[in-house]
């Protein structure tokens, strides 16, 4: 895949920030509105796949190495399991939501029943959302990138 025409590239570069920001929004507001790490990560990765389609896999592979992506994914997974372990250290058991009800970040509890809530709620859930989001972005994009690169390499031969 050598990339598409200039028109496609321009339109992609204009529209890509909106998709990425929407993805990040979905990740960040996972505990308030529909969405979360997986959904936002999938949207973000879809935006990146658009870049891949427009600019070609060889170009993308030069900019973003597959090794970096897998590293990022390992980091996301590591953060996730680390947060779970912190529940064991600060709280009592693995996966304990030890931040909720405390006065630290994300510690407030929303009023019961329907209504608007602060983003500063839900304890470790937003942190986990970000860790999973990072992991899903890196993971899904790594899959598509590696497959696309391998296929384009094969076609060159």
């Amino acid at each position, binding site marked *: 895949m050598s990339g598409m025409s200039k028109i496609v590239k321009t339109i992609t570069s204009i529209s890509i920030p909106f998709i990425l920001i929407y993805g990040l929004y979905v990740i960040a507001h996972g505990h308030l509105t529909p969405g979360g790490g997986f959904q936002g990560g999938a949207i973000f990765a879809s935006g990146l796949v658009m870049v891949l389609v427009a600019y070609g896999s060889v170009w993308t592979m030069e900019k973003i190495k597959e090794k970096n992506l897998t590293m990022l994914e390992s980091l996301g*997974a*590591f953060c996730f399991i680390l947060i779970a372990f912190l529940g*064991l250290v600060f709280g009592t*058991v*693995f996966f304990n939501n030890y931040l909720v009800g405390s006065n630290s970040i994300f510690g407030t509890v929303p009023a019961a029943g329907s209504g608007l809530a602060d983003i500063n709620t839900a304890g470790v859930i937003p942190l986990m959302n970000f860790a999973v989001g990072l992991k899903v972005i890196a993971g899904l994009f790594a899959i598509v990138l590696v497959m696309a690169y391998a296929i384009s390499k094969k076609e060159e031969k």
Partner: protein
Amino acid sequence: MNALEFFVVNSPIFAVAIPLLGAFLTPIFGMINDKLRNVFAIFIMIITTGIVFALSYDVVTNGIRTYIFGAQDLSLPVVRILFEVDAMSCFMAIISVILAVVALIYSWAFMKENTGLDKYYTLLLLMTTGMLGMELTGDMFNFFVFLEITSISSAALVAFWINRGKSVEAGFKYIVISTIGALFVLFSIALFYGQYNALNMAIIANSIQFTFLDKIALVLLIGALAMKAGIVPLHMWLPDAYSKAPSSVTLVLVAATQASLYGLLRLCFTIYGNMITLSPVSIGWLLVLFGIVTILLGVIMAIAQTDLKRLIAFAAVGEIGYMILGIGTGLVTMSPSISAAGLTALKGGIFHIMNDALDIGLMFLVAGAIFYATRETSLDRLGGLARNMKYTTAFFIIGLLAVSGLPPMNGFASKLLIYESTYQLNPILAIIAILASILLLAIFVKVLHSAFLGPALPRFNEVKEVPKSMLFAMAIIAGIIIVFGVFPDIIITNIVEPAANALVNNAGYISKILSLTGGA
């Protein structure tokens, strides 16, 4: 709470989380140094082994141990995920970790010349995590998730040698089969959820009514798990996957197959434990039938094979039949109430799970060693290897005696239990089982003759003994085989009998959870 108590209380989660953490960190160590990565992976697995042994000791002495994720106490609608570890789970976990440690040690020299070893070690650790999760969990959906982890990592590892079409194809077959199986498992879980609004195994077992939908779920779960466990006629992926994977992977794959078998046992004895005997067609007789067919097909197909690894794979199918036969006999003879003969059969079946893992595992390791030394697995081209590979030959002979159930190896002890209990059920079954065992001996004597004995072939003059790490890995398993064979009673009273009792005692399994919630 002192440190030891903290460790024991949290040991179920450490057993799963530590290999998982190791898998996440392996790529980072791989970037630094190859040897460091290998040492790290082995180190992680040895720690896990220690944890599993500590957990088993605790469970056998103090009874079932539970672990609640995310909270300390439980209220009656069980919303959280639970680990529920009884002696049976521990028994299977011990098999998994032993095989994983041996496979990691064996891989050191065996896989040395390949690229992509970072991912290889990561996937091997993930596979072990998946198996341990399947064996320790007490939640249906969690079981499904770990089943998927195990299948995906196994399928990728089966296809590790991507420059061979057959390996890739075997990996594809395995992933298709396991995905379809897992999807039907998920469907059955949804059926349970829709009726009882519960995902915990004990809660489901407590409230199960054996309605029409429960029977549908039972059939789908038996079918899917039997397919993953390699029971005839759903075994066909097994020879492909076993024979085309690298030998170290095959060793862990044996344990993965048995983890699915564990799921089948958990299903029959715990979830449907109260109800299974009410069915007019006894599930026990069904399992006995499956067992006999599996034994016969595995052994007869093994006679016809000319490829060493495929031959061992079919022998493995036969060995799976013995376990199913033992367990099925246990179910049949225990149908009105728990009887001594049924418990003996169950003990034989469960003990044979461990023995099969060790025996077949040793055979695959020997096959891998032959492949490493000669780059050849076809029996028509091998010959006279005993001259250059003395230790490997010795290990092969140990494995041969163990697989065919000859004393003083471990295979004899478990097969004796199975023969005697099936004889009480129906003598013909026992006779078939013994005949199949004799055939297994004949098959492996053929391998011994055509691969190791005979004149020294000129093309194998340069063959050398395999490296020390591979010999060490084989020696570990051979040592365990001999110890188990010479002192079977210790193993049976200390590990197997608690496992069999735990499996039968589903009331205890259920009441443990109910007592945690404050009910019952």
